[in-house]
């Protein structure tokens, strides 16, 4: 089984290739939001370096949201184009599940956070459970959502378990966490703390094996937020 992973949901642009339990390649930058110019050349570079025949790929795993609306669409259109041209399905990996997968096997709760602006973060709460064999499965404790930082902290306090934070929402919320969080916590180190297409490809392999692939036509990002016009319509415009 060979799966391409793509994540362009935030500042990170990342592509990876996982095959039969091994990560064969991964390119990641965390620099500027120039994904439109960098993502596909990155994939091309990986293809050349790995001497990859695209026809041997089984599916494309995409960080399917939440994230930057435009960033998500660049990744999605890239995945959909590959799916259409190669006649392969897409595996949608929710961005925050992909982030949580970075901390595979860790004890306690995993809380990835992405900066969602407007005093909110995109977040979910996860834990790893033994899969009865030689690994772990990712268990969703709280589904990903856009939520006020204070509300998230209250939720975690209510759960009363130790938690590991990661994601680009952490620096934005750190003061609040330090002030208001009452449970033990830790912050993930730099090599695990941001989106990685390696995680999307790896988790994508598992979701693909579970039969969670969809047609490339059907895929669209999960934004977790309506557009501003839709949010404001009932108040500002009479039909």
């Amino acid at each position: 089984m060979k799966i391409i992973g793509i994540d362009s949901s935030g500042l990170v642009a990342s592509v990876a290739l996982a095959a039969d339990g091994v990560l064969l390649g991964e390119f990641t930058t965390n620099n500027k939001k120039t994904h439109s110019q960098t993502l596909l050349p990155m994939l091309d570079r990986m293809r050349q370096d790995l001497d990859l025949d695209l026809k041997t790929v089984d599916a494309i795993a995409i960080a399917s949201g939440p994230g930057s609306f435009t960033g998500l669409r660049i990744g999605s259109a890239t995945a959909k184009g590959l799916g259409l041209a190669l006649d392969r399905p897409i595996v949608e990996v929710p961005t925050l599940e992909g982030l949580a997968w970075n901390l595979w096997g860790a004890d306690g709760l995993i809380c990835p956070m992405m900066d969602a602006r407007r005093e909110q973060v995109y977040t979910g709460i996860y834990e790893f459970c033994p899969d009865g064999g030689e690994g772990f499965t990712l268990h969703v404790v709280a589904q990903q959502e856009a939520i006020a930082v204070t509300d998230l902290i209250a939720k975690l306090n209510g759960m009363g378990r130790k938690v590991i934070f990661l994601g680009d929402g952490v620096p934005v919320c750190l003061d609040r966490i330090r002030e208001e969080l009452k449970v033990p916590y830790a912050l993930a180190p730099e090599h695990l703390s941001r989106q990685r297409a390696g995680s999307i490809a790896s988790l994508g392999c598992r979701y693909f094996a579970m039969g969670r692939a969809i047609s490339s036509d059907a895929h669209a990002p999960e934004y977790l937020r309506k557009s501003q016009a839709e949010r404001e319509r009932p108040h500002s415009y009479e039909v």
Partner: protein
Amino acid sequence: MEQAWKEDALVLGIESSCDETAASVVRGGREVLSNVIYSQIDLHTLYGGVVPEIASRKHIEKINQVIRKALDEAGISLRELDGIAVTYGPGLVGALLVGVAEAKSIAFATGIPLVGVHHIEGHISANYIEHPDLEPPFMCLVASGGHSHLVMVRDYGEYEIIARTRDDAAGEAFDKVARAIGLGYPGGPKIDKAAREGDPNAIDFPRGKVEGSPYDFSFSGLKSAVLNYLNGCRMKGEDFSRPDVAASFQRAVVDVLTEHSLSAAKDLGVKTLAIAGGVASNSALRASMQTACEEAGIRFVYPSPVYCTDNGAMIGVAGYYDFRNGYRAGYDLNAVPGLRIGEKQGVSR
């Protein structure tokens, strides 16, 4: 060395610059084998205009189906294509990015050559579809929701701007006036229809001129004059005739577009005048240009309404000639929302 460009090459054209998701297969730069357009207009009507984020979201939902349908209707498989052409500007950046990322990805996965096409150059090239004998040089009036230009087409892919609008685009003026008289969005077709019941000479609205630039357009004064007129009626407690306002406003726009196009065409010795863009499907403009061109002994050409609206066929046609001129785009092609006519960014020989 690139392979020589085939005369009967098959090009897939992809367009997503505003609120239409469109794809088309064109053979030999002239023959349209399919032309699939998914219009989002009903969605945006709820908001009185195009909402960029909603447009972008719809594009990503529909783009694969639209491309697949274009290939199916043409009876062409992806592997048979000689080139993929995609609109990369001007337009709404989020909307453009969907088409650009999709086109690049398909080109990457198949090895088919890619080129980025200028949206307005596409509109102009729509004239080639139904006029097989049309060849440069000719002059084209481009009038749409975002653009009002007089463009000299010196050769395939070689454009020179003769005149532009100093403020509102013609189509923008239509939308704003339509909203003011309660016709709603989209303004162009609704005013065109309402005007048929009205008297174009009922109200004397001003014909905008630009000091020192006789061919340039200005529509903001006209728009203000309409709003002032409506306000005046309201102050006096009088009703206004919607058909008369629509007809008189439309007459003023059409007069200006026709006069400026004809005077530039005559001064520059142009033998063929074309129109393009959404406003080019306005029936009064077509009639006025037709009459004026006949009087001046100038050939007048225009596309069918389906090729005036945003569509993939015009991108396939323009892309065909860009390919023929040796242009190619790399996988780093980006959307350029402010791309100027004749400008290339990330597309080179």
